[in-house]
């Protein structure tokens, strides 16, 4: 049980506030936890999902007594955009072994912000592979660290195999302004690409 229980700031501003899901993904250690903490206006939370050993998402409890299951903890944050609307940020692991969880979590999402680390760009290949299978639009945010090498944009786009219209912008996941810029780039992209033009 959480001590925030008695803290009224954890609740929705009103029961009719519209909640919109946004996926935040990327390789392990890329800064998902940090950017969610930066953007959330409630204390960031961890949600637990149950998976079987074979990687399936558990969506009912039948026969669970006989199965070995694991829980996966996911970062979660919520940011209100006025009293009528909030974005709910779901930190989603970007590894292939979480494919089933990905498929489940991305249902009903508005779009995804994919974080990448230019110091180890190859770590992003798995998440790019995951998102290309989805009807989910996305933007790429390069989480820049002090020692991040600065590559030409075209090289990074080629490495991540991005479509020309997919936004790729730099941010610092600890910094609210550039993190908001990254979300805004995603939202503007979603507005600009009304059809499934991203689909091959």
């Amino acid at each position, binding site marked *: 049980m959480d001590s925030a229980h008695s803290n009224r700031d954890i609740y929705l501003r009103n029961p009719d*506030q519209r909640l919109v899901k946004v996926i935040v993904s990327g390789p392990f250690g890329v800064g998902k936890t940090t950017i969610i903490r930066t953007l959330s206006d409630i204390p960031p939370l961890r949600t637990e999902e149950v998976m079987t050993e074979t990687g399936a998402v558990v969506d009912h409890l039948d026969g669970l007594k006989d199965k070995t299951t694991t829980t996966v903890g996911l970062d979660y944050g919520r940011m209100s955009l006025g009293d009528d609307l909030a974005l709910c940020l779901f930190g989603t692991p970007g590894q292939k072994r979480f494919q089933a969880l990905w498929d489940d979590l991305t249902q009903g999402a508005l779009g995804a912000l994919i974080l990448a680390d230019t110091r180890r760009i190859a770590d992003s290949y798995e998440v790019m592979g995951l998102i290309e299978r989805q009807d989910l639009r996305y933007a790429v945010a390069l989480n820049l660290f002090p020692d991040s090498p600065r590559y030409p944009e075209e090289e990074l786009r080629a490495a991540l195999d991005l479509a020309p219209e997919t936004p790729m912008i730099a941010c610092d996941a600890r910094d609210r302004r550039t993190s908001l810029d990254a979300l805004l780039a995603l939202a503007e992209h979603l507005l600009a690409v009304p059809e499934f033009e991203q689909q091959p």
Partner: protein
Amino acid sequence: MSRRLIPAYLWTGGRTHPSRNVLDRLTVLRAATDHLPSDLTSSGRSVLEILQHGALPLAEVAAHLEMPVIFVKVLVSDLFDQGLLIVRAPAPVESDAKPDQQLLERVIRGLRALQ
């Protein structure tokens, strides 16, 4: 990310399926009453107690109670069947396979206002 083995115990009074499969992580939950029946399971009681002070999406109730989301879905489904909860499913973000333009414009306005 933490991964740990959990025993598959049931916090849900023996129920295994949510009776409603429309429950989403972002389904908004509110208590329908401030009267807590005496025959509730302790986990059902926890759900109702945290909702006495305001509305929360299902995923956040699960996180605060440190219970897996699927377990809370089952609990919520049961509490709803007993008339103890008011639930509201999230509105779809697309219509005719297109993102909702008005919603996106509203999101962009909202993000700009925070900058």
